[in-house]
């Protein structure tokens, strides 16, 4: 991938790589659609993660070779995938029992907004004309042990996505544990946003200015 001229900090791949570093070997992981899916490409050598897709598969593998796919072996984004040795198929109630029951160690999601109290908005702009569609996002954030968000630090128009209070409709209340952006890794704590790590060449002030709520150092 080429780096934009005005790109500051990590690329999307680098964000995904940085996040992947933090996932322990043997974790059960659910990756949201989009940037979160990239994480699977960057799992460090020697670690094995088991991927859950809420439409009924544990042990999901990468996309099939061209032409080798099965239209009925898909992920939550409705793209064709594979099943690795040790996989299991199950129905939707069992799948969400895994989610709601706290059996999944980590889910990685995109975000429209993350508030400093852990509130997440990632399913609807709330516009009256929009077709509302929530899927499994509310179940994931309510049930999975850790919720990591991976997202650009700001919107395309430059508004911060890390905010004091979400203005979009919530996906869940107080659910986000950590945020990975192109600028930094930031924990959501009882004391609000706390910096974990800056991306190379980015300084604290730069991140603080682009964050819509107080950001502390550890």
């Amino acid at each position, binding site marked *: 991938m080429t780096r934009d001229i005005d790109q500051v900090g990590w690329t999307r791949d680098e964000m995904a790589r940085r996040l992947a570093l933090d996932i322990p070997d043997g974790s059960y992981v659910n990756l949201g659609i989009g940037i979160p899916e990239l994480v699977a490409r960057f799992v460090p050598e020697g670690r094995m993660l088991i991927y859950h*897709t*809420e*439409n*009924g*598969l544990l042990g999901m593998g990468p996309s099939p070779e061209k032409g080798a796919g*099965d*239209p*009925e*072996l*898909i992920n939550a984004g*409705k793209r064709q995938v594979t*099943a690795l040795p040790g996989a299991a*198929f*199950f*129905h*939707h*109630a069992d*799948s*969400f029992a895994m*989610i*709601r029951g706290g059996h999944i160690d980590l889910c990685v999601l995109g975000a429209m907004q993350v508030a400093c109290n852990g*509130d997440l908005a990632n399913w*609807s702009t*709330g516009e009256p*004309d929009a*077709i*509302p*569609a*929530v*899927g*499994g*996002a*509310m*179940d994931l954030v*309510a*049930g999975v042990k850790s919720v990591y968000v991976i997202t650009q630090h700001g919107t395309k128009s430059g508004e911060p996505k890390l905010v004091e209070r979400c203005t979009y*409709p*919530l*996906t*869940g*209340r*107080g659910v986000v544990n950590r945020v990975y952006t192109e600028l930094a890794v930031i924990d959501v704590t009882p004391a609000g946003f706390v910096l974990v790590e800056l991306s190379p060449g980015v300084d604290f002030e730069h991140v603080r200015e682009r964050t819509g709520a107080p950001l502390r150092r550890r």
Partner: protein
Amino acid sequence: MIDKSVPGPAAAVADIRDGASVMIGGFGEAGSPIELIHALIDQGARGLTVISNNTGSGEVGLAALLKAERVSKIICSFPRTANSTVFPELYRGGKIELELVPQGTLAERIRAGGAGIPAFYTPAAVGTPLAEGKESRLFGGKEYLLEHGLRADFALIKGRRADTHGNVVYHKTARNFGPIMAMAAGVTIVQVNSVVPAGGIDPEVVVSPGIFVDRVVEVAEPAHESELVAAGATYP
């Protein structure tokens, strides 16, 4: 002799009346019982309430049923699909009612409906717009919403293989909502690639025991929605 097989999709859906509630299996195209849906379009029932995770794509299968304006209400977790124009038009035109339910809550409500559980508490959607108007309650200091079991008059499901007693096994991620919808409907209709005699499925691997299944229909080579959509197919 118990033999739940029926001669074809048309016979299987013949008694679905106007105003019936119908659960339709599938997550995207995986598990979508296209031939049963097309038979339902041919059959003509109107004013249906459909319970299904999505709203279909293109103008075949579930999307075609919607386009034919047979559905007055849909209970659904994700009615937005890349290739779907049918639902958005109907919805914006006020021609269809939508009850949006988080996917896991939808699955659990269906399972509860089938298991005789009238209501249960779930943490999903607490603090969100989907909690509006719902009872909430604390357990162990954490907030949960009261959700109700969901049943339907009919379920249309796609399996891989069934025996004449109605035992069903599924295919990969096409399993999804099938087993729980089978539990939650008054009449459960399953299309499968093949129907075998009782004894043809190992009792250890049955996914939907026959008690949950009323009719099985052989559709040896079911269409794939994505292929139909790519070919620009419409139904009828």
